[in-house]
C-alpha cells in the first residue's frame, strides 16, 4: 500500500530524483527531499520504532523534530531523527532501542508488565535483598538508554564561525519571514534561522489550501530569499539564549555564533496531544503532523480518520485531510463546533459527523489504530463512559492545543505568564534587545501573525539603530486555542503523557500523590520531560495535570526550567575544530638537531633532555656533568618576561614581591618571591632593575599570564603610576652555566665580564655578535652562569653561535631534567613542585626572602600570622651511598611511629654525590640535620634517610661567585 499523494503545491520532494534506502533490510524508494519517516510511509511502513520503557510499537507522531519513537541508527551514527532527517540515497538504518529489530524486538511484550513497572519503580524496589543489587543494577542498566554507541566512531568535529547581524530572527514561518523582511527593509542586516529544511512554516502546511494567503506567501518568500540583507539558514536550530543575546546557531555545516544586536523570537508552537487510552498506537498523531505529511511530502496519513479537536486549527486540518482524500468518520469537538467559525461549517458541510462536547476515550488497534471510541463530556469536564460511540478508522488526528516554543524567552528572563484566554504561556514583557512575534506571542490570526512579525521586525531594526519605532502591534487573539484539560483517565491506563519516557497519566498523578506535587519535583521523580524531546509534547499537559490535582492555577504551578539546548546538539559541532596551541622557542631547530626529547610544559614544548647517551639517565647525567665541570647551556625562553615602567614602578614591585625591590641598585638583580593574600607561595623569578623607574621581571613558565594579569589588576586597583608590559613572546633567554662560562663568553660580548665590573647578581646590557642583549649573573643551577636575554629574532643565531664558539669547551645543551637535578643539588625550590596549596616562605625555608619591614606587600598580614604557626619545614635528605633498594619517588611519605611525618617533594639520584638526595617537608619542627627519617616506598617498605643541611652542593656558594679552581685567572 502506498500513501503517496498527487503533487502538492508546496511539497519538498523532487519527484524527478529517486533515493533508495534500506530500513532493517527492507529496501524502500523515496524522492529527494523525503525524510526517513516519509520514505517509510511512502512504502507503506508506519512502524517507526519502539518506545523507551515498554518497547511499544510507535508510528509518526509530530513530524516536527521530536518524534523520539522514530529514532534510527547505523554504523556511523545513532539517534537519527526519522521525522526530519533526509533519506539520503544508500542509507541503511535500523531502529534504535530495539533488540532484534523494530518488528521483532525482544522486549516487545514488556508492555504487559507495565502494571509492575510503576512510576519510580526503581526507587521502590530492585534493591532488596542486598546481594541481588548488582543483578538488579545490571537489569536497569541494560534497559537504560536508547541508541547504541559505536566506540570506534571518530570525527564529527565541524568548524565554528562567527555570524554578524543587527537583527536575528528565529523561525521562518509567517511572523518570522515578515519580521525579517520588515527589518531588512528598515536597513538592518538580518539573519533568519529555521529548523525546517525550507522556509515558510505554517503558511505552507497549515495554510497550504488557504487562497487568501497565496499572494502574501509568495511575496514574503520572494522578499526573504532575494533580499541581500537577509542571510537565511534552514535546517538550523538556535542552540539556546545566552547572556547578552549570545546565540549559537547549529547549522548542518557547524555552529555559527552570533552576538545579536536584537532578536525576534518567532518560534511558533508545538502541538500537544490529547491524553486517552492507547493514544500512542501507530496512526494516532498530531493534526499538524498529518498536515506536514500531506503538504511537505505528499503522504496520505491514513484512509479513514477520527479526530479530536478543540480549536479552529483542527477544522483546517480536517479540510486538508478531506482534500487529500481521507474520509473522516468522526470529529469529537471538546467544545461546540458552532463556536469555531467558518471552517467548522465547511467541514460539516462536507458531511463529516461532528460530535460536540465529546472527547476520544480510547482507541483500539495493536499494530495500527482500527477504531476510536468517543464519549460525551459531562459538566465537570470528564467523559461519560456510559455513552460510547465507536467509529472505525486507521488514523486519529489530535488538535486540542499548543505549547509555545518559549524556551529561549524563559532563558532571557522574559516575564512569562499563563494567558487563560488563549490557553497558553505568553511573555508579558521582554528584556531589552528581545522581541517575540506570531503565535509564540499569542497572535493566531494568520494576517495578524504577519502584521505582528512585520511590527517586531521594524521595532528590532529601529532598536538596532538606537531608535524606537512607533508601531501598532496586533493584539493577542481573544479566542481559546488550547483546551484546559484534554486529558482523560482510563482504567486500563496506556494513556500516555510523555512519549519519550512512556509516562502514563496515572504514573504522573501517583507521583503527585506520593508527595512530588511540585512541578520540578514531579519532573525528576516521574521523568516527565527528561527524554530527548525535553518535554516539548509533555510539559504543558504535565502542568495542567498537576495544577488540577493540587487545585492551583497554572501560574502557581509554574513550569520547569527551560535550559539549553533547545534541541539536542551534536557534541562534534559544539566542540568545533580541534585547535591546540603549541609554543616552541626560536631555538627549536637546534633542539631537534641535538636530538632533544621534548616534554610539554603547558602550551610549550621544552627539551626534557638531549638523547645523546645510551640511556635517558646517562644523557641527563652527562648534561649535569658538563655544567658542573665545563659548560652547559639551557633554553629558558619559556620564562615569563614582564617589564614594569613608571614613577611608581618601585612601589609596584615592593607590593608584588615579598622582598624589597625599591632599594635595589640599578644594574642589579634580586630573587623575586610572590605570595598570595593567604601567604601561599605562587611564583618566583628574578627582578632586574634597569633604571629608577624601570624593572624587568621573570616569572616561572606557567605563571607568565597570571602574573601579568595580577600586575595589571593591582596597578589599576592601587591607582599607581606604572605600566606593565608582557614581553614573554618578544624576548628569549638562555642560561650559559659552568666554570668555563666567563672565560668562553668574555670574547663574544662587548660587556666587561670581570668580577669588579660585573659581580654576582648584577645585570648588564650590551651586545653579543652585534645583537642587543641583557646578561644577568644568576645562580639557579649553582655554577658561574649568565642568563642571556635577547630579542626573539636574534635568539637562534646567538644560541647557534654560542654552541659553535664554545665547542672547544665541550659545551652541551641541557634540558629541563638536568636543570631540575642541578638546582636540587643546590637546594633551590621549584614553585608548585616543592610548594603546595598552603606553603608559605617560612615552611619553604626562605624566611630571608620576606622583608617584613616594608609597609605592605601582598600576603604580608597573613605571613605575620603564619610565621609563629609554622608546623613543618622543607629539609634536605640523603640516602646512604650504599643504598640499593627500591626507588624513592616524589610524594612518597615520611613515616614516624606509624604516623605521617612528611612528604618528599623532590628526589633524584645525584651523579655528583652518587646517591639519592632530595627535599622533603618534615612535619616536626624539632627535626634536625643529622636525624634519620623513614621513607615509605611504593611497596610499603620503610627505608632510612638522613636529614642534611642545604644546599647539598657548594654550601658556601663559591662556584657562583667564580672563586673556583684557578679557572678564574684565565680570564683577562
Amino acid at each position, binding site marked *: 500500500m502506498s500513501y503517496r499523494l498527487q503533487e502538492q503545491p508546496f511539497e519538498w520532494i523532487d519527484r524527478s530524483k529517486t533515493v533508495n534506502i534500506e530500513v532493517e533490510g527492507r529496501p524502500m524508494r523515496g524522492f529527494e527531499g523525503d525524510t526517513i519517516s516519509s520514505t517509510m510511509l511512502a512504502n507503506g511502513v508506519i512502524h517507526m520504532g519502539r518506545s523507551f520503557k515498554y518497547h511499544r510499537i510507535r508510528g509518526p507522531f509530530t513530524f516536527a523534530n521530536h518524534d523520539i519513537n522514530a529514532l534510527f541508527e547505523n554504523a556511523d551514527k545513532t539517534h537519527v531523527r526519522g521525522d526530519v532527517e533526509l533519506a539520503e540515497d544508500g542509507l541503511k538504518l535500523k531502529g534504535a532501542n530495539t533488540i532484534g529489530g523494530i518488528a521483532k524486538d525482544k522486549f516487545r511484550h514488556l508492555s504487559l508488565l507495565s502494571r509492575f513497572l510503576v512510576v519510580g519503580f526503581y526507587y521502590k*524496589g530492585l534493591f532488596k535483598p542486598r546481594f541481588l543489587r548488582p543483578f538488579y543494577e545490571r537489569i536497569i542498566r541494560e534497559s537504560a538508554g536508547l541508541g547504541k*554507541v559505536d*566506540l570506534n566512531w571518530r570525527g564529527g568535529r565541524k568548524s565554528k564561525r562567527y555570524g554578524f547581524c543587527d537583527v536575528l530572527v528565529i523561525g521562518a514561518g509567517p511572523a518570522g519571514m515578515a519580521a525579517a523582511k520588515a527589518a531588512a527593509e528598515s536597513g538592518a542586516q538580518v539573519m533568519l534561522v529555521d529548523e525546517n529544511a525550507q522556509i515558510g512554516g505554517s503558511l505552507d502546511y497549515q495554510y497550504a489550501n488557504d487562497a487568501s494567503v497565496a499572494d502574501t506567501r509568495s511575496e514574503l518568500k520572494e522578499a526573504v530569499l532575494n533580499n541581500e540583507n537577509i542571510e537565511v539558514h534552514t535546517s538550523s536550530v538556535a542552540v539556546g539564549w545566552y547572556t547578552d543575546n549570545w546565540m549559537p546557531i547549529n547549522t548542518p555545516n557547524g555552529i555559527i555564533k552570533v552576538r545579536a544586536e536584537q532578536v525576534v523570537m518567532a518560534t511558533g508552537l508545538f502541538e500537544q496531544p490529547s491524553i486517552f487510552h492507547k493514544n500512542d498506537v501507530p496512526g494516532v498523531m498530531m493534526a499538524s503532523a498529518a498536515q506536514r505529511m500531506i503538504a511537505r511530502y505528499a503522504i496520505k496519513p491514513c484512509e479513514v480518520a477520527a479526530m479530536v479537536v478543540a480549536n479552529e486549527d483542527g477544522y483546517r486540518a480536517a479540510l486538508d485531510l478531506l482534500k487529500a482524500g481521507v474520509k473522516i468518520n468522526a470529529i469529537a469537538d471538546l467544545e461546540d463546533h458552532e463556536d469555531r467559525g467558518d471552517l467548522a461549517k465547511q467541514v460539516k458541510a462536507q458531511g463529516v459527523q461532528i460530535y460536540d462536547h465529546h472527547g476520544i476515550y480510547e482507541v483500539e488497534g495493536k499494530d495500527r489504530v482500527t477504531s476510536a471510541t468517543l464519549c460525551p463530556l459531562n459538566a465537570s469536564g470528564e467523559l461519560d463512559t456510559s455513552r460510547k460511540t465507536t467509529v472505525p478508522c486507521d488514523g486519529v488526528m489530535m488538535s486540542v492545543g499548543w505549547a509555545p516554543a518559549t524556551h529561549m524567552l524563559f532563558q532571557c528572563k522574559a516575564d512569562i505568564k499563563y494567558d487563560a484566554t488563549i490557553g497558553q504561556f505568553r511573555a508579558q514583557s521582554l528584556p531589552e534587545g528581545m522581541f517575540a512575534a506570531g503565535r509564540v506571542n499569542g497572535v493566531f490570526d494568520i494576517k495578524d501573525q504577519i502584521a505582528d512579525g512585520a511590527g517586531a521586525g521594524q521595532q528590532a531594526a529601529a532598536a538596532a539603530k538606537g531608535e524606537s519605532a512607533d508601531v501598532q502591534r496586533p493584539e493577542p487573539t481573544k479566542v481559546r486555542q488550547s483546551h484546559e484539560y484534554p486529558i482523560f483517565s482510563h482504567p486500563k491506563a496506556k494513556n500516555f503523557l510523555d512519549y519519550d519516557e512512556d509516562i502514563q497519566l496515572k504514573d504522573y498523578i501517583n507521583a503527585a500523590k506520593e508527595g512530588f506535587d511540585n512541578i520540578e519535583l514531579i519532573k525528576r*521523580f516521574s521523568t516527565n520531560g527528561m527524554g530527548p524531546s525535553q518535554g516539548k509534547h509533555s510539559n504543558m499537559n504535565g502542568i495542567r495535570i498537576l495544577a488540577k490535582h493540587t487545585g492551583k492555577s497554572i501560574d502557581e504551578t509554574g513550569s520547569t526550567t527551560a535550559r539549553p539546548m533547545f534541541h539536542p546538539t551534536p*557534541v562534534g559541532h559544539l566542540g568545533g575544530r580541534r585547535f591546540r596551541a603549541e609554543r616552541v622557542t626560536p631555538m627549536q631547530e637546534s633542539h631537534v638537531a641535538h636530538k632533544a626529547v621534548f616534554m610539554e610544559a603547558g602550551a610549550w614544548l621544552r627539551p626534557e633532555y638531549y638523547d645523546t647517551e645510551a640511556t635517558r639517565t646517562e644523557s641527563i647525567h652527562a648534561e649535569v656533568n658538563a655544567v658542573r665541570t665545563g659548560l652547559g647551556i639551557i633554553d629558558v625562553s619559556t620564562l615569563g618576561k614582564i617589564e614594569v615602567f613608571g614613577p611608581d614602578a618601585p612601589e609596584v614591585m615592593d607590593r608584588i614581591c615579598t622582598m624589597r625591590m625599591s632599594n635595589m641598585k640599578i644594574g642589579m638583580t634580586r630573587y623575586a618571591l610572590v605570595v598570595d593574600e593567604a601567604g601561599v607561595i605562587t611564583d618566583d623569578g628574578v627582578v632586574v632593575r634597569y633604571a629608577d623607574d624601570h624593572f624587568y621581571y621573570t616569572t616561572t613558565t606557567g605563571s607568565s599570564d597570571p602574573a601579568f594579569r595580577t600586575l595589571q589588576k593591582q596597578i589599576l586597583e592601587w591607582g599607581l603610576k606604572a605600566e606593565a608590559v608582557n614581553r614573554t613572546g618578544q624576548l628569549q633567554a638562555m642560561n650559559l652555566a659552568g666554570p668555563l662560562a666567563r672565560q668562553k663568553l668574555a670574547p663574544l660580548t662587548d660587556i666587561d665580564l670581570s668580577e669588579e665590573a660585573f659581580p654576582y647578581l648584577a645585570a648588564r646590557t650590551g651586545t653579543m655578535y652585534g645583537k642587543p642583549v641583557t646578561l644577568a649573573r644568576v645562580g639557579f643551577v649553582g655554577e658561574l652562569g649568565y642568563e642571556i636575554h635577547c630579542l626573539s629574532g636574534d635568539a637562534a643565531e646567538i644560541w647557534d653561535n654560542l654552541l659553535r664558539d664554545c665547542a672547544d669547551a665541550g659545551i652541551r645543551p641541557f634540558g629541563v631534567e638536568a636543570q631540575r637535578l642541578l638546582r636540587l643539588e643546590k637546594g633551590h625550590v621549584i614553585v608548585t613542585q616543592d610548594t603546595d596549596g598552603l606553603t608559605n616562605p617560612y615552611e619553604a625555608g626562605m624566611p630571608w626572602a620576606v622583608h617584613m619591614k616594608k609597609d605592605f606587600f601582598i600576603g604580608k598580614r597573613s605571613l605575620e600570622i603564619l610565621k609563629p604557626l609554622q608546623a613543618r619545614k622543607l629539609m634536605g635528605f640523603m640516602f646512604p651511598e650504599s643504598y640499593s633498594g627500591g626507588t624513592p619517588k616524589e*610524594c612518597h611519605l615520611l613515616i614516624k611511629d606509624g604516623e605521617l611525618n612528611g*612528604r618528599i617533594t623532590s628526589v633524584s639520584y645525584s651523579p655528583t654525590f652518587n646517591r639519592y638526595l632530595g627535599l622533603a617537608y618534615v612535619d616536626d619542627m624539632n627535626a634536625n640535620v643529622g636525624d634519620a627519617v623513614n621513607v615509605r616506598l611504593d611497596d610499603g617498605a620503610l627505608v632510612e634517610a638522613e636529614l642534611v643541611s642545604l644546599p647539598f652542593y657548594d654550601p658556601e656558594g663559591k662556584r657562583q661567585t667564580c672563586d673556583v679552581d684557578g679557572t678564574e685567572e684565565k680570564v683577562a
Partner: protein
Amino acid sequence: MPYRLLKYAFKNPEELGDPRYFDQPEKLKSSYDVVIIGGGGHGLACAYYLARDFGITNVAVLEQGYVGGGNTGRNTTIVRSNYLTPEGVKFYDESLKLYLDLSDDLDINLMYSTRGHFTLAHSDSAMRTSRWRAETNKHLGIDSEVVDRQFIKNEVPYLDLDCGGTHPIMGALYHGPGAVARHDAVAWGYGRAANVRGVEIHQKTQVTGIKTNDDGTKVVGVETNRGFVQAGKVISMVAGSSPRITSMVGLKTPIEIFPLQACVTEPVKPFMDTIIVSGSLHCYVSQSSRGEMVMGASADPQELHSTRSSFDFVEGLTDQMMDLLPFTGGLRLMRQWAGMCDMTPDFAPIMGKTPIDNFYLDGGWGTWGFKATPVSGKTMAYTVANDKVHDLIKPFGLDRFDTYKLVGEKGAASVGH
C-alpha cells in the same frame, strides 16, 4: 518480579498507606527547637539524624524552592574518598561508608553503584599529586593507587590515551570505591525519613532574616516569607546561598560563590562503567543509570551568584571530551545547567559552631557537597544536639580562617578551580 513491586501493581499509593514523601503542612508553627535553613541533602540528612539519633523532632526544614532543588539536584553524583589531607580522607570515607548502607536505612533505592574512579594525569605534576593522594589514602586505609597507562587501557579501552596528540595520559589515580548515586533520591529518602519522624518540611518558604537578641550574640528565630518563627537553634545548610544567610547575622566568612556547570548527552545504551576525571583537561564524565553521559568541567573563572548557563562552558568541555573519548563527537548534548559553589580558600568546608550562639553553619562545600551529604548531616546533628563539635569536623571550623589552621584540599579537587 520482586515482591516489593508486586504490591504497587494493584494498588494506588494512598491505598497502600505508604507515607507521602513530604507532607505540606499548611502553617508554620510559632516555634521550633531547631530550624534548618535549606532543604537539600545536607539539611534533610541533618533533620533525619537529629530525629533518629537524638530524638529531636520539633524541627522545621525551610526550603525556598523545592526539596533537593539546589546543588543536591545539580551535581554530577560522584561519591569518593580519595582526598588529600588526613582530615578530608577520614571525613569523606565515613560518608562513603554511610552511603553503602543508605538505601536500606532510608528504604529507597539510591542506585548507589560502585564504579571505580580514575583521575587521569597528563603531566609530571599531576602524577606527583596522584602519588601524594594515593600514599595518603593508603596510609589511612583507603583503596587508592597510582596506575599506569596499561592498567587504564585494560579498564577503559575506549579512552584515547594519547588525547588526540597533546598532553597524553601518563597514568592515573585509581580509586576503586568511587561511586555514583541517584542524587535526587538521596534528598527524597532523607526527606521522607525525617518527615515520618515528625520533622516538618516547608517548601517555597524563604528565610528573609534572622533575629538575634539585642546585642547580636544569640539567635532567637527566623523571619520568613510566611511569617516569623522562634527557633532554639538555627542551622544554615544552603551551600551557594551561604553568604546571604550569614550576612543576616553579620557573620563574615571567606566563602566566594562560583558557578559550576554540567551537562548531559541524550541517553544511550550504557557502555561506560567507570568514572573518569581529567584535571589537566578540566573535565569529568560518567554515565548515569538513565544512559546519559553526565559531564562537568571546572568552576567558572569569575564569581557570580547565578545559575545561568554559558556557551563557552559546553564549547570547552566538548572539545576536551572528544580528545579523551573520540566517539563522543557523534553524540548529542541534550541539556546543560549550573549550580552555585560556595568555595573556601582551602577547598575544605566550614562546619560547626559559630561565634553567634545557637547559630550553626554547614557551608563552603564548593564542589564536594553531595559526597559529604550523609556524614555532614550526621556530624552536624551531633554538633547541634550536644552543642559540641563532632570530632570528625573539628578541623573544619570557621575560626580556622582567623587562626590560619587551614586544611589544604586544593590538590584533591577533581578539576581545577
